[in-house]
């Protein structure tokens, strides 16, 4: 079992994004997470790997599944887990973040999991803190554990990532999930397509080495995997798309559009879903095509693997903090 193995997997003290990871590191994390899937399905799930270690979940943005997933992962590995939800006003964020970092540092955590509405927040904390930092989503930048759990889900279903065609559909512009997935899937040899109205495609998106489609049926033609993204409520009413009914008509995943994908194509969604906006309930709830629940299960395993891998690099005795 994994707890006896301490050969290094990650070459960095932090997990800030997919961007800095090598193919070897990604494969190492996915292999390790595979072991944790088995463990999580066993009756006795508790490990002693992180006994004595302190894990802080610092969430500046509301999150149910990512936060509880990290909490569960930490607890199953034996760490002491502290959840901090910080309600911030939109003003003076930068200052607050550094103040918070200084305060937290004094509590001497071993691993800090952070989610923040601003891109680069995790990196800023990593520079200011002595502990390992895991990015649980920073603005529209990265959400590495989501991409890893998506990859694990696909790999377990399809046996590989290499050569698969994956369509990422919806609000690419604001999506950290999309950015991390584009990075990871491309590194692992999958072919990525982006499907969205032009208002939700970032500038120069084609420079990522992906194919761009504005017509969903065309974009889904022959794909192995359909990844739907959540459309934030504040972006629905006129600013980026005119209405939810129009969005569903042209970009919502329903049977008719899915029929253009490869037979047996898998449907994924990072959650929480807007039923009838980006996805038809009939598909979201169809266990033949939807792996959305499985993604949640893989999420816990991936986060255990990440915490395990980072713990291998933590100092064993004492700390050389000032």
């Amino acid at each position, binding site marked *: 079992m994994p707890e006896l193995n301490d050969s290094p997997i990650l070459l960095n003290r932090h997990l800030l994004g997919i961007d800095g990871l090598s193919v070897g590191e990604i494969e190492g994390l996915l292999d390790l997470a595979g072991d944790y899937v088995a463990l999580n399905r066993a009756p006795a799930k508790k490990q002693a790997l992180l006994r004595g270690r302190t894990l802080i979940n610092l969430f500046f943005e509301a999150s149910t599944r990512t936060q509880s997933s990290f909490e569960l992962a930490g607890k199953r590995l034996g760490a002491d887990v502290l959840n901090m939800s910080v309600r911030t006003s939109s003003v003076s964020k930068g200052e607050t973040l550094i103040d918070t970092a200084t305060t937290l540092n004094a509590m001497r955590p071993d691993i800090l999991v952070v989610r923040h509405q601003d891109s680069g927040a995790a990196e800023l904390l990593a520079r200011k803190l002595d502990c390992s930092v895991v990015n649980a989503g920073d603005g529209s930048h990265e959400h590495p554990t989501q991409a890893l759990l998506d990859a694990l889900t696909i790999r377990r279903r399809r046996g590989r990532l290499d050569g698969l065609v994956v369509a990422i559909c919806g609000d690419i512009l604001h999506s950290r999930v999309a950015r991390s997935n584009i990075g990871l899937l491309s590194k692992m040899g999958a072919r990525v397509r982006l499907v969205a*109205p*032009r*208002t939700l495609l970032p500038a120069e998106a084609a420079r990522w080495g992906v194919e761009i489609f*504005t017509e969903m049926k065309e974009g889904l033609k022959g794909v192995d995997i359909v990844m739907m993204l959540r459309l934030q409520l504040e972006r629905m*009413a*006129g*600013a*980026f*798309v*005119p*209405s939810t*009914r*129009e969005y569903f*008509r*042209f970009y919502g995943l329903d049977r008719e559009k899915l029929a253009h994908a490869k037979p047996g194509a898998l449907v994924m969604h990072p959650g929480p879903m807007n039923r009838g906006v980006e996805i038809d309930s009939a598909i979201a709830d169809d266990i033949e095509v939807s792996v959305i629940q499985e993604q949640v299960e893989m999420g816990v395993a991936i986060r255990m693997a990440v915490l395990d891998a980072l713990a291998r690099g933590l100092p064993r005795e004492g700390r050389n903090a000032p």
Partner: protein
Amino acid sequence: MTRTAFINARLLDPATKLDAPGALLVDGEIIADLGPRLFHDAKPADAKIVDCQGLALAPGLIDMRVFTGEPGSEYRETLASASRAAAAGGVTTMIVMPNTDPVIDEPSLVDFIKRRAAATASVRVLPMAALTRGLAGQVMTEMGLLMEAGAVAFTDGDRTIANARIMRRALAYASTFGALVVGHAEDPDLVEGAAANEGEFATRLGLPAAPAMAETIIVERDVRLVELTGARFHFGQVSTRASLEVIAAAKARGLPITCGVSAHHLALNELDIASYRTFHKVKPPLRSEADRAAMVEGVAAGIIDVIVSSHDPQAADTKRQTFAQAAFGAVGLETLLPAALGLYQSGHADLLDVLAAMTTAPARILGLDGGRLAKGAPADIVAFDPDEPFVLQADTLHSRAHNTPFDGRRFQGRVHMTYVAGARVFDRATATDV
């Protein structure tokens, strides 16, 4: 099937540069055949014969800019009354603006226009839908659903979207569907309260005026936004030399941009306002003679793609006012052809080029099947005499509103018959509207 043979005609087809005596055969709703040799030897036995007596036979005009009062202001103009004016002016397809009450910003309202037109109008009516809800310049409309309902393009009509961020998003969203966006170029803050073109003439009249640059500023902005978004864009009507320079440069760079000019801005300048005649208050305002001359050159050089009527019926309540308080707008469906033909009469442009700006060009921009004389094309035809002189009398207009700036004007070029889908909708000989 009813077959109609038009003989002794002068065939004018801008698409093929055809200008020759000949005949044309209509079978049902389409053109079955045409050419100089057709019926040369024998008249068709099984067709109704229309002897054109040398009249020119051209594709029916497509007017890309028509305001009506339906729904909401039917006392000014209905789709039916506008279509009678169109038929009398040789216009067989009207593109109607969404500036009604309610605004055409919902798929169901596009459907309403189409159904009302089918039931009451004698010419083809194609609606443009609003680009933003309520024409408020804030929230983009459901362009995908509106296109499915039958909207041929998106525009806020005679309103400019002031916010560049909203305009950018609307253009980007439109480009998703390959939709055509039609813009109006007048900086809303610069022209607020203005009634005339800023310059010596407006100054002497003491009229509140806005600079011609108010148009060019928006033209420059929208050209850059098109460059950013890749949207297909058409300036509904431009009126200044500087705007044309910007558009010519944009076209030279390969941007998907086209533009139109109203017949009023080809035929009139700011001096025509004379003693505060409110029928000459239009949007954008009548410009200097240098700008008017630039419009004529623009059509001749092909920088201006289309000529429109910018038909905007206004009743006494909105026009019998002081110049500053009067509403903008002039009717134009029935004067579009003769006013545009002024370019041909004066030798500034070829007859076929003038016609192209009202037939093939709008058909190409809108992706329509008409606008040409060809086998298999819709039998939308106008028979006119390009040289016949007449004096326009406002009270003979078929439009419900008579606010024409051309009352008493001497024109050359007169429509005699108009056919839509093979059916006669106007005949000057009987002076009846079929």
